């Protein structure tokens, strides 16, 4: 047993080193452009009829699974402890037992029949046709951000999807490029946005709140940074929000903002839309009310003037691979400041 001591020492050293790793990582300066933190988006903390149904089914399955797990592992452990190190002559030479085989075939089969029954019931509940007057929202996946269209309201936004509590939401999912996965764990299970198809899904939020979400289908370099949030508000607040979104922002005032708008229309309008102006690009997010949002760039930074400036200046340095080009060689620092001054007026 000479090797035991060095092994223990190496093992302990390994553990210490690894615990030190994240501590060292935390030593850096505070991260101003790190991804926006959402509250833990737990499947088991549901806030909609859909998520409540799947959480209920999960717990039902969990307890059956735990029962099976405990039974099998106990049998295994008992077998190991009861029959180890006995003289070989005591090993009973049996080849099988048909009654036992029937037993351990039929009991699991019965359990599965029960599980299947609950599965089908739950699927029917979740996919049941919507009752009442739904709100239609179309979510369009782009590399790497989500666009949200409200066709009945004439509103288009990005990164944050605002919905009323209590009213059924009927989602349509589309993609303009590759496959994306649409998922807000506390509100609904996944439905993919598949290029060339329109997928449908519905849910009703039961609790007001802000729910973290992100793309779940590997969609390229910045798949991890395709994040979004669903904000559920009481119906009244939702109406106010929608009315605000339907307004065209007033023309900018002040020298910087006016100049900013000129540069914006020249340089940015091919990709971005701002209501009430000639800017009508559909490649990037609709910016009509960009300053009313809490974060930008697919949920990777809070929407502050400073972050906006950095993003406009050189987006690929924060999100390598993004379609938004590096503007630092085209636009002067003054241009950037003016553009941000203009964007800040788009509330």
């Amino acid at each position, binding site marked *: 047993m000479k090797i035991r001591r060095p092994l223990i020492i190496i093992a302990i050293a390994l553990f210490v080193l690894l615990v030190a*790793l994240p501590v060292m990582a935390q030593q850096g300066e505070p991260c101003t452009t*790190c991804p926006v933190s959402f509250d833990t988006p737990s499947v088991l903390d549901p806030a909609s009829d859909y998520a409540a149904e799947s959480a209920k089914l999960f717990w039902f399955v969990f307890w059956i699974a735990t029962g099976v*797990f405990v039974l099998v592992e106990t049998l295994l452990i008992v077998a190991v402890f009861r029959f180890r190190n006995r003289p070989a002559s005591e090993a009973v030479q*049996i080849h099988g037992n048909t009654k036992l085989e029937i037993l351990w075939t039929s009991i*699991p089969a019965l359990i599965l029949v029960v599980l299947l029954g609950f599965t089908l019931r739950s699927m029917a509940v979740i996919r049941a046709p919507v009752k009442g007057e739904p709100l239609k929202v179309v979510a369009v996946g782009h590399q790497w951000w989500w666009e949200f269209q409200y066709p009945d309201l004439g509103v288009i936004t990005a990164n944050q999807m605002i919905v009323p509590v209590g009213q059924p939401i009927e989602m349509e999912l589309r993609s303009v490029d590759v496959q994306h996965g649409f998922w807000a764990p506390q509100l609904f299970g996944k439905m993919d946005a598949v290029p060339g198809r329109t997928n449908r899904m519905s849910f009703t939020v039961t609790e007001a709140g802000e729910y973290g979400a992100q793309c779940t289908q*590997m969609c390229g370099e910045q798949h991890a940074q395709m994040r979004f949030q669903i904000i559920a508000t009481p119906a009244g607040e939702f109406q106010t929000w929608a009315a605000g979104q339907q307004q065209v922002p007033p023309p900018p005032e002040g020298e910087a903002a006016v100049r900013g708008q000129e540069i914006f229309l020249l340089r940015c309008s091919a990709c971005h839309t701002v209501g009430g102006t000639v800017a009508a690009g559909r490649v990037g997010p609709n910016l009509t009310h960009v300053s009313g949002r809490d974060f930008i760039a697919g949920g990777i930074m809070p929407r502050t003037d400073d972050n906006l400036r950095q993003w406009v200046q050189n987006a690929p340095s924060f999100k*390598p691979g993004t379609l938004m080009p590096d503007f630092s060689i085209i636009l002067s620092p003054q241009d950037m400041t003016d553009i941000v001054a203009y964007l800040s007026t788009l509330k």
Partner: protein
Amino acid sequence: MATASHTLPGAGAPTGLLSWLTTVDHKKIGILYLYTTFFFFIIGGLEALTVRTQLAWSNLKFISADLYNQVFTMHGTTMIFLVVVPILAGFGNYFVPLLIGARDMAFPKLNMLSYWLLLAGGIVLNASFLLGGAPNAGWTSYAPLSTAVYSQGTSIDFWIIGLLLGGTSSTLGAINFLVTTITMRCPGMKMTELPMFAWSMVVTSVMVLFSTPMITVALLLLFLDRNFGTVYFSVPGGGDPLIWQNLFWFYSHPAVYIMVLPAMGIISEVLPVFSRKPLFGYQFIAWSSVFIMILGFSVWAHHMFQVGSPLQVDTFFATASMIIAVPTGIKIFNWIGTMWGGALKLTTAMLFAIGFIAMFVIGGITGVSLAIVPINWQVHDTYYVVGHLHYVLFGGSMFGIFSGLYYWGPKITGRKLNETLGKWHFWLHTLGFNLTFFGMHILGLLGMPRRIYTYASGQGWDVLNLISTIGAFTIAFSVLLFIVNWFVSLRSGEVAGDDPWGGATLEWATSSPPPVHNFDKVPTVKGLNPLWADAHPGEQSHY
């Protein structure tokens, strides 16, 4: 034979480099397979450590997003196509002829070709790292992300060619295993009384033969799309990206059974020997494999519950997926039945076999939970699935593979592995494995998607990820112990002799390592456990 002579049997056969390059001996090819795949296992393991280091805590910047995508893609591709599938073919190469009392495989030159195609595939795949970047669309490489519009450069082409070579190797191997077991069994050995590992290679080979053409077709179509302007997967051209998923999973779900059935075969050899009892319910274990094989072809779309199929389609695939738990359960109960009433010798090989059962049960149970569609809608593409698949492929297949290496290693090298180091390996491996993968189930439920290179702080994911990373390094350390053990034992391990474990099957009836022709005299057998027939006369009857 068990005397301390240092001239091991098998000496005298040519051992030079040329002999390895030109060999058609199934044992040498088997050894080439084992060393090559273990080398790829180390590469895939280093990729896993890179992934785990990047994810150890929120907002770490160990590697870039693009490199991360390359590394996790190569980890999955390597472990599946260059490690688990071919390492089991390696065991098959070495042991199927020995188990059935044959002198070689049916087509030795085809066998040689299988190995070199695999090596070529592995080299092509890994060469991409140096030639413009490795594949980065995940081991599933879903279209249209993997088409030329969204994956410029050649990385996906390397992936396609590497996999085509590996798939061809696997198909040729399957033909060889089938013909060998059907035509070359020694006198007295019935097809229905094959040693369980040989039987599992038969079943697996049938699966390989029928499923591999699908991925071959899918890869060719993708290659045409990328390089010759076809539009099979391109929406603007009138194609459909879901065709890729259907073709891909028609192979890649059966691939799970291709990776686990032979490992189940290995532990079905190990458990009886160290329990000193015949395999409990041989016929049930054997036919449950066939049942799994047949059902395995009708569950592929359970990987696609979120693409918007009609509920009827989801219902069919959910039902088929759940039914697979029944034959799997039969196996598990029969293995416990094999141990029950035995005289267990807890060698390292036996510990890994028991560990296989203990861990695979968890993977099986989470597998059933994933067949339950509303749960799948929630946890698909999250770390819950990553946890599940590693309990099946690492807790299952890799535990079986290590069990096989400790059990059959002495037959291959002529020397036993060190049991003290072996037990350290087992316990650290099991500890590290559970630290790494158990928490992933919880991470998935807490909303962490898979394949993300970073995550925000304050979402409650940090601590579980850190534990997982610590576990990954623990596994790496334990594997290091195994490698040290292997090479130290190769030089100075205890000489094994013909039959160090008191085995029941024919490979123990010849020397360790066996001579080039395997058996001096073609053996004649009666019943399932030929070497035990004398020890327990009159008990060979089975129902």
